[in-house]
């Protein structure tokens, strides 16, 4: 009940990663994503993990915070592991029960899939943990600008992404409050069996969605009341400056990806 959604929240700090240009961080995340997708062997994943740990530690944010960021997705990781374990039939047979077989390859692939997922979520949290929403907004807008050639509005996409990131934790908190209200009135989520838990979560869908729409509507009104017009020409109080450290950061990821490809 008290698990707080921490993914997508900025964590105050003054590390070199905090000071980097958001565009450098965005680029690095894309490169990391490619590396994670490419990594299919234990060795590659181990190198990637070691690299990630070094970068995460240099952000001077408690390491446990990154691990907790992946917590909401543990059920998904468990599902992926079980799925691979049950349906991938290569390698040595470890256990056989009727038509069910648990094989070495199935377990290994399941482990790799969960590992990749965990790595991706924990590592990419560095972007939102070390970048203020305003800087992230500017970085995204700047990165998406080239798309305006094909008629895509960078500003509206940036606004959508920023608002989504901003509201993910809020929506989770709202769901948590509803669960508390239900527990208070005799239906405690923690006391229920797995199936009943699933049913209970489903009952939250309607009020949480209604709440999200209500929030969205209020946000639109508040923005319009303060003179926001979508796609109107805007100036920015803060401007982004690309420094040598940003190039170095991006270069680190390029080298890491090259090593992965060579391996």
């Amino acid at each position, binding site marked *: *009940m*008290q*698990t*707080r959604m*921490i993914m997508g929240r900025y964590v105050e700090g003054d590390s070199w990663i905090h000071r980097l240009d958001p565009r450098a961080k965005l680029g690095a995340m894309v490169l990391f994503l490619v590396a994670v997708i490419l990594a299919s062997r234990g060795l590659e994943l181990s190198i990637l993990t070691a690299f990630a740990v070094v970068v995460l530690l240099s952000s001077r944010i*408690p390491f446990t915070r990154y691990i*907790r960021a992946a917590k909401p997705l543990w059920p998904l990781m468990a599902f992926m592991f079980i799925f691979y374990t049950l349906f991938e039939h290569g390698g040595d047979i470890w256990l056989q029960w009727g038509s069910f077989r648990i094989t070495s390859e199935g377990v290994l692939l399941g482990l790799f899939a969960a590992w990749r997922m965990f790595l991706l979520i924990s590592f990419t949290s560095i972007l939102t943990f070390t970048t203020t929403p305003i800087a992230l907004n500017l970085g995204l807008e700047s990165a998406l600008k080239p798309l305006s050639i094909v008629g895509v509005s960078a500003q509206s996409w940036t606004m959508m992404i920023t608002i989504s990131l901003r509201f993910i934790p809020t929506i989770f908190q*709202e769901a948590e*409050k*509803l669960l*508390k*209200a*239900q*527990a*208070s*009135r*005799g*239906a*405690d989520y*923690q*006391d229920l069996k797995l199936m009943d838990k699933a049913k209970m979560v489903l*009952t*939250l869908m*309607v*009020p949480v969605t*209604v*709440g999200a729409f*209500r929030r969205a509507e209020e946000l639109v009104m508040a923005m319009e009341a303060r003179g926001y017009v979508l796609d109107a020409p805007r100036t920015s109080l803060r401007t982004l400056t690309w420094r040598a450290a940003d190039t170095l950061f991006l270069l680190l990821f390029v080298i890491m990806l090259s090593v992965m490809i060579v391996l």
Partner: protein
Amino acid sequence: MAIVTCRQLGYRYRDEDSSRAFALHGVNLELEQGLFYAVLGSTGSGKSTLLQHFNGIYQPSEGEIQVLDVTFQAGQKKKGLKELRSRVGLVFQFPEQQLFEETVEKDLMFGPIQFGKSKEAAREAASKALAEVGLSRELLERSPFELSGGQIRKVAIATVLASEPELIVLDEPTATLDPVSRHELIELLQELRRKEGRTVVMVTHRLDEVFCAADRFVLMKEGTITFTGTRQELLESPERLAEAGIVEPQMMTLALEASRRTGLPVAEMPCELDDWAEWLMNHSGLASGQSGQPAHASDPDDDNRTALGQPAAHEPIAEEEQAGELRPAGTGEEG
């Protein structure tokens, strides 16, 4: 008999930074059955966290809390709290985040059904609770999301009343209510306490709305309790309010000022407005001859006559206090 007992109760939010201080720390509190408690404190003082311990939503990180016959101790996670929760009703701070059913009626019936009532009995309880908070039966078939802010607040309170709990805990129930509804709600809570012997604990930022209604006051600051006592005790130490960041209610200012100017003990000061009217009638001799009094009320030259021209029926007070007292605020010697 104590219905809630906290001993060195402390609570820390699990996922917050370890550097963060406890949301509650070293709380010692005893709530007696059948009384109306007002819990006050500035934002972030731990009021809501404390309240959510009363039905086991939060369980202590330090110390222990006993609610009715259930004891929660630090380090022990208790489950299966349905029985306790049927006896302790908790209305959360944000009403729009505690209604989840398709219709108001279903939402009102949720608690009673979970606590073992039949559908018919739950339906009856739903209608009764809705009437208690002053809403029309027509709302029963409406979706909770179609209601106005004030109506949502009232329905949220009714969802808890429908289960008829012994201990009613409300977190800022009067916020967003209009003045009339606010007054009616306080009256309803008082009635539940007086007629049915229920215990009421209410968090509020406005001391003036509960000043005359509550039996006991609990002041909180930075996760600790700084004061627990009766209205009398609060009147005797008004500086505690400022410490907790609470604005002194007008009724309290009036009582303190009247006591200071008349020399009568603050314990003898009334609270409700009609009692004040009565008191002024009885003590109006003190005010005779002053500006701001109706011309016919007293003879400006006769300090010993009351507003009705009768001899003053008050205890003898010093001459200098008789002169120049009970003037409108700002004209006296406040400086």
